[in-house]
């Protein structure tokens, strides 16, 4: 069970930063609470008594999002359900509805923030691979001499290991900024034991854009979660697809470059097997979302036979 001496609900960023800077050692920030509350249970952290909990879910500046200069700036309090229900977000982040539909359930999605998902830095976090793929940066703020100081870090540098980030004392994540992927086809694949309420064994995200004649790959974004301490962006596979004809062969060649990515502690062999088929499916589904079918299943079997 989670207890604390004080539960604070600041309404402005400045207030939150001041409280956070002054909070005794061991205090925590809480957004949706969907990681922290289950953590404070038997078998994990057990009964936890924190000095201060600072609930940032009512901080005005962390709400909502903006789109400018080809980037989407998501306030830290944006929750996963918004990626499903907000038409503009669906337009700019076409992989996110697919990610969200696989994420927990309707009710948890109303509380769970993307920022919390990233700070929690689970190897299986579903929100992280898409953010990597969309060149995400994490915006961080702290108080220095009474004024707010901000810095921005690439999402790939932000997470350093399972549960570990570069966040320092007194810092709060204020936003996550991603490329607008408007016009791309998006897909998110997840292997788990059931549809809802399941943590990824492996997850993959793909975004694709084709040349004007739909014949070649103009841009492909790929990343994977659940297979290593930190999710990975498949730079080599992405590069190998760029400019290539849209065909099963190109896809399979790219999948091969994904090779030995699996570095998880458990079920390595299984995950390895899943991963290759998985990336292929992610690309195929992203193409379908783009409106282009890769090739009919018979041809798929034939192509597989040739590799």
């Amino acid at each position: 069970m989670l207890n604390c001496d004080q539960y604070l609900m600041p309404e402005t960023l400045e207030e939150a930063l001041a409280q956070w800077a002054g909070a005794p050692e061991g205090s925590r920030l809480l957004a949706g609470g969907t990681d922290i509350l289950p953590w404070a249970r038997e078998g994990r952290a057990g009964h936890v008594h924190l000095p201060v909990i600072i609930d940032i879910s009512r901080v005005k500046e962390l709400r909502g999002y903006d789109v400018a200069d080809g980037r989407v700036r998501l306030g830290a309090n944006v929750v996963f359900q918004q990626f499903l229900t907000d038409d503009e977000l669906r337009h700019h982040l076409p992989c996110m509805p697919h990610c969200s539909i696989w994420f927990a359930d309707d009710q948890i999605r109303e509380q769970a923030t993307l920022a919390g998902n990233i700070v929690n830095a689970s190897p299986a976090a579903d929100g992280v691979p898409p953010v990597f793929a969309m060149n995400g940066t994490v915006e961080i703020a702290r108080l220095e001499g009474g004024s707010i100081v901000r810095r921005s870090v690439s999402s790939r540098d932000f997470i350093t290991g399972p549960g570990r980030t570069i966040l320092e004392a007194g810092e709060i994540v204020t936003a996550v900024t991603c490329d607008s992927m408007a016009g791309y086809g998006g897909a998110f694949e997840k292997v788990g034991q059931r549809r809802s309420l399941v943590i990824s064994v492996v997850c993959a995200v793909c975004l694709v854009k084709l040349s004007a004649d739909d014949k070649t790959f103009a841009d492909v974004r790929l990343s994977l979660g659940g297979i290593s301490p930190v999710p990975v962006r498949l730079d080599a596979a992405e590069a190998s697809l760029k400019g290539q004809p849209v065909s099963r062969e190109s896809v399979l060649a790219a999948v091969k470059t994904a090779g030995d990515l699996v570095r998880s502690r458990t079920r390595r062999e299984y995950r390895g097997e899943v991963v290759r088929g998985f990336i292929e499916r992610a690309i195929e589904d992203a193409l379908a979302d783009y409106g282009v079918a890769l090739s009919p299943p018979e041809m798929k079997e034939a192509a597989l036979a040739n590799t």
Partner: protein
Amino acid sequence: MPTLDMEVTVNGRDVKRRATTQMRLLDFLRNELNLTGTKEGCGAGECGTCSVFVDGKLVKSCLMPAAKANGAEIETVEGLAKRGELTYLQRAFHKTGASQCGYCIPGMVMAATGALRENPHAGFDEIKERLGGNICRCTGYSKIFEAVELARDAMNGSLPTTALEGPGAGDSFIGNNVRRLDAPSKVTGALKYAGDMVMPGMLHMQVLRSPVAYALIKSIDISEAEAMPGVECVITADDVPGEDGFGVFVHDQPIMARGRVRYVGEAVAAVAAEDVETAMAALGKIKVEYENLPAVFDPEVAMAPGAPVLHDYAPGNIVKHIPIRKGDVEEGFAEADLVVEEDYGTQAVEHAYLEPEAGLAYVDPDGVVTVVSPSQNITHHRHMLAKIIDQPINKVRFIMSPVGGGFGGKEDMIYQGMLALAAMKSGQPVRLVFTREESIVSTAKRHPARITYKMGLKNDGRITAVEFRMVADGGAYGLSTEGVMRKAAILSCGPYDIANVKIDTYGVYTNNTPSGAFRTFGAMQAQFATESHLDICAGKLGLDPFEIRRINMMRSGALTHTKQKLGSVSLGLALDAAEKASNWESGPADVRGSSRSDLGKAGNREPCTLGSRIRASDGAGGKKDVA
């Protein structure tokens, strides 16, 4: 305990209360406002029994600190309809029989209400998606989805509201779709399960459990815990006045560990205090000194000579061995054209009833020790407890509270004894509510079994002999193991008429979590092996799987291997019906690939798609249906 002042609107009424910073919204609703329709099935966001609306959004109240909801407008299942009335959805749940044990139902009704508020025209897939965070262990969901669709149509006017009425029994209950009498109390959240019950002066129990699998208890020091303010009593095995021991067959399990602990999670001591937090804190003050013993976790190892002995009365660690012999298997194998031998394994399974164990005990003014709990076996419990507390049977009373799912898992008197002892020692009512983690770690599982199956067959598919050996992990205590072994032996060869059989089932003690009763009571393990084996043999003989079963099935008048004469056998009819309903394409099962005609075509039975990803969008409102 740090506190905060809560000002919220609950079901339309303004509420001002002091809460503690520890409370989740769930605790605030249940403990402060006595709104117990909101249940705690898991406490970790996984089950949805705690779903409520906060400012119009459906949330899991176990994941929300009460403080987070301060100032909000909250709606619980109790607020959906006026007293004495039911909403369309509640009526539909009643109509379709969507509530069974009912423990998931308030949460389901909330989730369904949320689904139809979000989209009054939600299609089947959207309904499924929106209810995806709510788990039911009883219904298989079909009736729940049926109810939501029915309510939707009645609300939209595409069905008359009379569609929500039940047809009633008419002249007879037989052949008529009679609605459950207890459904209204379940769909409104009014029904009180043991964990919802309170009594004046009630204490709260917490249990200290063994962290080790097998050890001698050198000492237990409860003095510091007992001295804590707010603690009314601490109990251990020393408080048992009578003959300690319970179990469905052999009474080998003490109320709390006596001298030795035999599995991780076994109760060692219990505290009754004025609140859960104090009781929990007191557990930390109990000092137990263990001396580890070599433990055994594999039943085959436990059966071997020299293995650690768990119970003095059973030197070979055998809880029960059931041997059955009929005919002469050696002759049968000699006669066979084909002999196939395979091993089969099944794992431990948790019942995961949505209602974790809970109970309330008190001593009534006449000195009758009374235990209220969702026990599946109150009469037997009553007799056992009378001996354990050394009271005449008329001084012991068991009241069965509504069972929020049992599936066999609530047959064992795993905690009722502790409650009785604490009520006797403190003189006050005492309640214990398990957490989900506690329920999983300490209560019985389905027996994991290893089965060696040897079958002899003629080329025409006739079985000539079966040798069946099953070794089941009974865990640390006997519970229902004896009965499970009996049933497994009786059903070992399935409904097949076999001249020569040699059957041995062994239930074995290990230091694993005890195994006990679980739906099918041993038959599942045996049937998994038998039916898998028949399919393998059919494949080897080039026979159709239905055919091999028809050749060997018992027919009316057959004598089973335990010498029971079967007056009528309907297996043939069942096989015919299954074959027809599945559009089965006849022939050996393992020789056709994806081209077979009985898969995925119109008119074929759909495979179960629960939990699968939704594919289609359902029109204008379908933007939430992605992928």
